[in-house]
């Protein structure tokens, strides 16, 4: 049992595993492609709705309900359903993942916009900003902190769950889990898991860096929060708690 770990590292260190059409490099690239595609589609759906609801406060209840329902849909079930209905291919799994990702993005965007101090919004309006200006010059820049929290939660979920999607016949790092599983090849599975976790962490660190670089230090100054985590990996609950807390 102890040699599982040494075997895993041997597997990871083997240059042969990294090259070729089913090598780690290709799998990694596939994994990122799926993730990017899913995030793109999910953002295109969730962000405008989140901005609208956050800005106007209209449809809040509906959005919370829909986001909750989407969250309850099992990705594996959707995946099977879509594949059975539409056949194999790239898009059915992608849609299943999009449905998984919309709730955190929606919740994050909505919570981000509505987390902005109402006085700031009021002042913006009183200064003569149009509604769009209020949204993009006051609400979005100040809500970005929370919004990117939702985005990071979403992207982490996608990266982790793309692996489940390999169950059908997509590539990505999840292949190592399934191939390893049917063959009882534990080093391969463990290696695949480590790669996925590593990818998630790396992506999150990069996003954190972006956040630090592009977010106004004024907007992120949270004097009341004792201290943010060194690696603020994911904040799946807070953004959603803001949304959910409002309903109960």
């Amino acid at each position, binding site marked *: 049992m102890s040699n599982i770990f040494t075997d895993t590292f041997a597997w990871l260190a083997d240059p042969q595993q990294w090259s070729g059409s089913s090598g780690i490099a290709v799998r990694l690239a596939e994994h990122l492609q799926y993730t990017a595609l899913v995030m793109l589609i999910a953002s295109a759906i969730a962000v405008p709705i989140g901005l609208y609801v956050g800005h106007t406060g209209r449809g809040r209840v509906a959005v919370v309900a829909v986001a909750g329902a989407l969250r309850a849909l099992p990705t594996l079930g959707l995946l099977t359903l879509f594949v059975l209905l539409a056949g194999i291919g790239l898009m059915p799994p992608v849609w299943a993942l999009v449905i998984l990702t919309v709730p955190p993005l929606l919740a994050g965007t909505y919570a981000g916009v509505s987390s902005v101090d109402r*006085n*700031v919004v009021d002042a913006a309006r*009183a200064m003569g*900003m149009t509604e769009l200006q209020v949204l993009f010059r006051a609400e979005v*820049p100040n809500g970005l902190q929370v919004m990117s929290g939702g985005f990071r939660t979403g992207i982490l979920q996608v990266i982790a769950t793309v692996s489940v999607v390999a169950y059908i016949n997509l590539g990505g790092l999840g292949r190592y889990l399934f191939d390893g599983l049917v063959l009882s090849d534990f080093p391969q599975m463990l290696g695949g898991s480590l790669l996925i976790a590593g990818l998630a962490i790396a992506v999150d660190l990069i996003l954190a860096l972006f956040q630090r670089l592009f977010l106004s230090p004024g907007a992120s*100054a949270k004097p009341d929060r004792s201290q943010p985590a060194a690696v603020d990996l994911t904040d799946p609950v807070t953004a959603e708690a803001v949304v959910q807390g409002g309903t109960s």
Partner: protein
Amino acid sequence: MIVFENVTKRYQGGQPAVDALSMSIDKGAITVFVGPSGCGKTTSLRMINRMVEPSSGTITVAGRNVSQEPAARLRRSMGYVMQSSGLMPHRSVLDNIATVPRLNGVPKAAARKRAAELLDVVGLAPVLGKRYPSQLSGGQQQRVGVARALAADPPVLLMDEPFSAVDPVVRDELQQELLRLQRELAKTIVFVTHDIDEATVLGDKVAVFAVGGKLAQYAAPEEILRAPANDFVASFVGRDRGFRHLAFNAADAVRLHPVKMVQSAERTVADGGPGEWALVVDADGRPLGWSSPRDGTGLVPGGSLFHRGDTLRRALDAALSSPSGLGVAVDDDGRVAGVLKAAEVLALIEETRQNREERP
């Protein structure tokens, strides 16, 4: 300049927040809306720049019906300052001040330059311009709020309890600063507060609102203190209105008497011999305290000081607070100019009252 005509605001299905308000706000003056919590002050103020739309009635600014103007443009023509400064946390102080000029299409560099000037106008150091709002104290934030409201040089300034979140000392400072600014700029300012003291200090005219959005009295502050229109106003104005009202009468006519003075350095046990209070002063003639008629050594702390140009209120307080019964008057350099007597101040007060009686 700003005219309310029979304006009523009713939020969804409730009692009126503002009830048939008709009033006319003077150009170039400070008009203060004051009243207890929930009486419709904010609502009235916000109807001026259409942050709230009236349920009925019309509001005109400089003769133009506000409801005919595009809301965003209307708002840019009026500065707005509120209790929580409402500064954009993600922008530097300079950029905050530059907001409205930027919305009006002023180039960035020019807007920043103007912002830097305004920083000086509101009495803030230039270095603060680069900070973020969260890095300023509450009082500084409010000054930035005022600067921002002034940036586009709007003729009208709407201020909703702008100073109520800062501590009393800073509030005093900000009030004086506002009065100083107003002397230079002569804007039409509508100022909301629930503090009657602030209202009487700042207002050229004061509108007292009663609960239910009714205008209870609208007059000069002096008149409101002297002659509250009804019990509601009287009780709102509070108990000390006799004293406070004195603040509206200059004490120029009060007589200053000479007083025995000793330089602190020259004092001996014998000084201020029995039966007479002597004022102890420093080398420049600034008052330090009193020397009691029975004790030449101890320094008795003095009362409040009366500065040349102060009001009857200060004059009387100076006399009443002095251990010798003699109020110390000082000149602009803080040097003793003489002493005043309570009885004489009172006589002056009575005279003022009788003059008022003669031309009511």
